[in-house]
């Protein structure tokens, strides 16, 4: 097979440059995080890790992710089903709308929530009157996390479902299947990898969001302090090793995410070959 750029020298040069640059720009920062975390030995690393407030931050962060993911999963599936399986006025607009979180800077995202649900906001005022606290409590963190992560699942599903078309679902209808049966037995198996991929991305962002959460969290230690906020707090507090320990934890979650994604892709590729 003859392809462009197949000459061994071209090949070697391009791969070499690509690998070198990737290592420099991507791998090195990762190494730096761990180097800093272990700078003062593993003992201090452990000590920092088992700090009461670090543990609380880990707990809160996971709690937020666990709440956010299913909600955006359901939303993403409904949205993808809607825009890929039906024609209706406003379909394109809807698709553009869900890109808003990409265009909005996270700090601004936090701000708009604060303005709305904060004590002086028009909904927040009413809520405050009824002693309901959204901002500076976990519901507020969930809300902004929902905002910043809402496009991920849908963005994975829409191109795939568009490419797959509605044929199999139509076939299922002609065979008398009900809506839920169609989804569970025909659609879901076809999109499950993309769905998982969307979940992984949502998770990564939900766990790592800083700007938006920082605005609405109130940073009450042990209560509304998420892991990324905790990194900042420790860092501000001259606890560099502690900060990088928490950062290393987040980096580990990131690495796990990447591994899971790569694993999924690999599986998908293998299934593709198998077909």
């Amino acid at each position, binding site marked *: 097979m003859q392809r462009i750029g197949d000459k061994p020298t071209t090949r070697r040069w391009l791969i070499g440059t690509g690998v070198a640059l990737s290592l420099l720009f991507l791998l090195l920062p990762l190494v730096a995080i761990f180097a800093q975390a272990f700078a003062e030995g593993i003992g201090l690393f452990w000590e920092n890790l088992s700090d009461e407030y670090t543990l609380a931050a880990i707990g809160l962060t996971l709690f937020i992710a666990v709440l956010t993911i299913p909600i955006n999963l359901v939303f993403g599936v409904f949205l993808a089903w809607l825009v890929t399986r039906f024609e209706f006025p406003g379909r394109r607009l809807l698709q553009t709308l869900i890109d808003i979180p990409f265009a909005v800077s996270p700090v601004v995202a936090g701000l708009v929530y604060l303005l709305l649900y904060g004590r002086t906001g028009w909904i927040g005022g009413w809520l405050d009157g009824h002693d309901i606290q959204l901002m500076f409590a976990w519901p507020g963190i969930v809300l902004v996390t929902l905002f910043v992560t809402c496009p991920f699942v849908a963005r994975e599903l829409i191109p795939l479902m568009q490419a797959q078309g509605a044929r199999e679902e139509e076939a299922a209808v002609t065979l008398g299947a009900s809506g839920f049966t169609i989804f569970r037995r025909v659609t879901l198996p076809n999109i499950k990898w993309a769905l998982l991929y969307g979940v992984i991305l949502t998770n990564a962002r939900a766990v790592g969001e800083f700007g938006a959460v920082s605005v609405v969290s109130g940073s*009450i230690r042990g209560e509304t302090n998420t892991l990324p906020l905790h990194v900042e707090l420790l860092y501000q507090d001259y606890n560099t090793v502690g900060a990088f320990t928490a950062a290393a934890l987040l980096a580990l979650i990131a690495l796990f995410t990447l591994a899971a994604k790569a694993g999924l892709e690999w599986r998908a590729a293998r299934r593709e070959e198998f077909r």
Partner: protein
Amino acid sequence: ADRELLNSSYDIARELFATINPEFIDWWQEQQDESVDVKQSHGGSSKQARAILQGLKADVVTFNQVTDVDVLAEAGLVAEDWQQQFPNNASPYYSTTAFLVREGNPNGIESWDDLIEDDVEIVFPNPKTSGNGRYTYLAAWGYADRELDGDEEKIREFMKQFLNNVKVFDTGGRGATTTFVERNIGDVLISFESEVNNIRKEYGEDDYDVVVPPVSILAEFPVAVVEQYAERNDNLDLAKGYLDYLYTEEAQRLLAGFNYRVNDETVQQEFADQFPKTELLRVEDVFGGWNEVMDQHFAGGGILDQLQRR
């Protein structure tokens, strides 16, 4: 615990209150026979005030800027006469701005006019985003005002040079410290005296020297009860008790241990050699009050912006 108190504080006070809170809890237990718990929320002092405005239900605030409490007072969350409710303008401890220089003070920096030399690189946080930075700016201005007899033209010239020597403007005190210490940038770091001493302790007494200029500014650390919320939380007495505690000899000693200056005479004497005598200018005296300062100097297009224009 029977009751919970939330203290909203500035971001670098984490260790401080981590030390004070357990002592207070014991103290309260002794006095009132009630077990309580104190929660801490830390962030930039302005950000914390904003959060409270928007509904963060803190019972007390322990800030590093008077203006941030004023904002709460304006909104009616804090009593209007809050500065009268506790001694010393409701400021249980205070500090001033001081210099951290590298070992042996190679540039021979002793006072503010040493900072406008051409070859001096300064690091301090952005006055726009940091109270810490604002105090530094005001201290320099106050010094110049005194030395130049209030000739505004010349003061501005002085300040221009001063700002010109700034190498990096971080958003907060911590960022500036990192820049100076870990990234090895600049000849002098300007911050609260308390901070500067802490840093020296943290990063090596041998590598840095602290210089307290003969003239500087008085930085008050105001405290207040957020009455509206405390009342709602049924915590009025507890909140007041907490702040009262900060004035006890026991607490003042703890504060001094963190390099804050205090008014308790016994403690003052104990720590006398730690705090060099300095003349401390008051914002009210030099600038006429915080409102004037904010309007004239730090607002968009104000004097600070004018000075920094290239």
